[in-house]
C-alpha cells in the first residue's frame, strides 16, 4: 500500500492529492482492498463455499482501466474474481498512469456472479496539471483572442481534471479458458461499458457528448501447454463505440456541416500474454480507437481530434492468489493535440 501512496504523491500530481474528496475515496478503497485480501486469505483453505475463490490463480486476470477483468486496456472474456459456477467473486483495483502531459488515476471494483455475469464500476481521473494552461494558450492563439476571452468550459487553467464514471456489464456466453484444452473453442463474452463524463460543459464545447457506451464481444483462449510448455494467452475483441480517447474526451463528434454525429465504429483489439511462471506473465495489447472530428473542420479541430490506437507492453505478477501487480509501458499516442503520450502504468489488483 505504501508504494501506491507515494506514487499518488508524485510531484506532478497536485490536483488529485489536493482534492480531499478524491483522497477520502481512494483511502477508503485501500481499506477495502486490504480487508478483502485479508478475509480471503483467511478463508482460502476453508472449503468450497460460495465466497471461497474456487478458480485457479490468475484466471480472474487483472483489471483493465475501464474496470473489467482483462489486461490493462482491453477487457477479456473471463469473469472478474475467482468465483466458479456456484460461487461469487470480486475484485478491486487502483491504476496510475503517468504521461508526459497528463496523469491518469483509475480505481474501482467488480463483482463476478457464478462465473457468468460481471458487474463493474470504475472511476477515471485524468488530470491536466500545467498542461491545462498550455492548451488554453494554444486555443486562444488559434482564435487570436486572449485566454480570458475563451468560453469558460475551454479555460482549463492549472490543475484541471477530466473525470468519468464507467459502469460495466459483461456476460459470458460460453467456453472456459482453463477447461477448453485440446480444442479451438475460446471463452466468449459480450459486454457494455456505460460512461458518464463529469466535465459536461467542456465535452459539449468540444462538439462531443458527455455520456456514451462501448459494446464489445471478447474471445479469450488460454493454452495451458503453450509456447515453451508455458501458459500462452490470446484475446481478440471487437468494440462498437464512438468514444473519444475511451470517453475521456466524450463520445461522437461533428460531421461536415458542424452538426453532432454519433456514428458508431467497429474497432478491433487484441491482447497476448506469455506466462514465464504460473504467476508471472508478459504481454502486449492493442486497442484501435475511433477517429471522430472534434471542435471543427480546421487546424485546431484536426489537432485536438487526432487519436492514436492504444497499445501497451506489460508485466503482471501475482505474489499471492489474491493480489496482483501490473507494470506496463503504455503508448496512448496523441491526446488533445499533444503527441507522444506514452508512459509508465502501474496497477494493483486485489480479488477473491
Amino acid at each position, binding site marked *: 500500500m505504501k508504494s501506491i501512496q507515494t506514487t499518488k504523491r508524485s510531484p506532478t500530481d497536485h490536483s488529485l492529492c489536493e482534492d480531499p474528496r478524491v483522497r477520502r475515496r481512494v483511502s477508503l478503497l485501500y481499506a477495502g482492498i486490504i480487508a478483502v485480501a485479508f478475509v480471503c486469505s483467511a478463508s482460502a*483453505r*476453508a*472449503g*468450497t463455499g460460495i465466497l*471461497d475463490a*474456487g*478458480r*485457479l490463480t490468475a484466471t480472474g486476470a487483472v483489471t483493465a482501466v475501464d474496470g473489467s477483468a482483462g489486461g490493462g486496456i482491453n477487457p477479456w472474456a473471463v469473469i472478474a474474481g475467482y468465483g*466458479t*459456477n*456456484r*460461487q461469487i467473486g470480486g475484485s478491486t483495483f487502483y491504476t496510475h498512469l503517468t504521461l508526459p502531459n497528463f496523469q491518469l488515476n483509475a480505481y474501482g471494483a467488480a463483482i463476478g456472479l457464478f*462465473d457468468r455475469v460481471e458487474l463493474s464500476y470504475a472511476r477515471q481521473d485524468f488530470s491536466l496539471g500545467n498542461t491545462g494552461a498550455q492548451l488554453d494558450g494554444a486555443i486562444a492563439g488559434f482564435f487570436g483572442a486572449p485566454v480570458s476571452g475563451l468560453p469558460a468550459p475551454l479555460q482549463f487553467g492549472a490543475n484541471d481534471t477530466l473525470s468519468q464514471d464507467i459502469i460495466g456489464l459483461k456476460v459470458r456466453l460460453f467456453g*472456459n479458458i*482453463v*477447461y*477448453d*484444452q*485440446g*480444442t*479451438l473453442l*475460446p471463452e466468449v463474452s459480450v459486454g457494455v461499458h456505460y460512461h458518464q463524463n463529469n466535465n459536461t460543459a467542456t465535452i459539449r464545447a468540444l462538439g462531443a457528448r458527455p455520456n456514451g457506451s462501448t459494446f464489445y464481444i471478447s*474471445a479469450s*483462449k488460454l*493454452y*495451458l*501447454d*503453450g*509456447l*515453451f*510448455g*508455458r*501458459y*500462452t494467452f*490470446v484475446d*481478440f*475483441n471487437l468494440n462498437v463505440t464512438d468514444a473519444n480517447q475511451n470517453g475521456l474526451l466524450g463520445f461522437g463528434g461533428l460531421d461536415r456541416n458542424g452538426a453532432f454525429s454519433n456514428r458508431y465504429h467497429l*474497432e*478491433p*483489439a*487484441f491482447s*497476448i500474454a506469455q506466462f514465464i*511462471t*504460473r504467476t508471472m506473465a508478459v504481454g502486449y495489447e*492493442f486497442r*484501435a480507437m475511433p*477517429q471522430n*472530428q472534434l471542435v471543427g*473542420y480546421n487546424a485546431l479541430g*484536426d489537432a485536438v*481530434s*487526432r*487519436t*492514436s*490506437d492504444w497499445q501497451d507492453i506489460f508485466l503482471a505478477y501475482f505474489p499471492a492468489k489474491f493480489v496482483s501487480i501490473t507494470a506496463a509501458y503504455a503508448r496512448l499516442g496523441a491526446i488533445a493535440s499533444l503527441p507522444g503520450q506514452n508512459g509508465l502504468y502501474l496497477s494493483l489488483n486485489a480479488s477473491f
Partner: protein
Amino acid sequence: MITRNSQFHRAWVLGVLLMLPAVAAQAAGADYYAQFGGAAGMRALVNAFVNRVVIDPRISAYFRRTNIPALKAALALQFCQLEGGNCKFSMSMHAVHAQLGVTQAAFNALANDLYLTMDRRAIPMAAQNNLLAKLAAMEPQVVTR
C-alpha cells in the same frame, strides 16, 4: 479532417490470426513420460499427490470412503497413458465420478494439489503443463454440479 493510421488494418489481421492455434500442436515429440521419471517417478508422484489430496480440507470429504491404494494404482496407470508411457487405461471418467457431486471448485483444488506436488518433485514445467492440460479437458466428465 483527420483520417486513421494504417495500424488499424493490421490489427484486424493480426488479431484474427492470433486466435488460430499457432501454439497448439507442438508437444507431440517430447518424451514427457521420461521427464516424470518413468514408471517409478510416476508412481511416486501419484503417491505424494493423493496423500496431499486426502488431507486437503477443501476436498478431503470426497475421499472418505475411497479405496486409496486402488485410486493410486488407477491414477498412476492413467497418467502413464496420458504422458506416452505405453500404458493401457480405459476407465470412463464420467462413470467413475457420476455419483460424487464434484464441483468446479473441488476440481480446481485437486488440480492445485497436483501442480503443487509436481513443483515439489521438480517435474519440468512443460511436462507439468502437458499433463494439466489433458486433465483440465476432462472437467465436463468429472464435474457434475
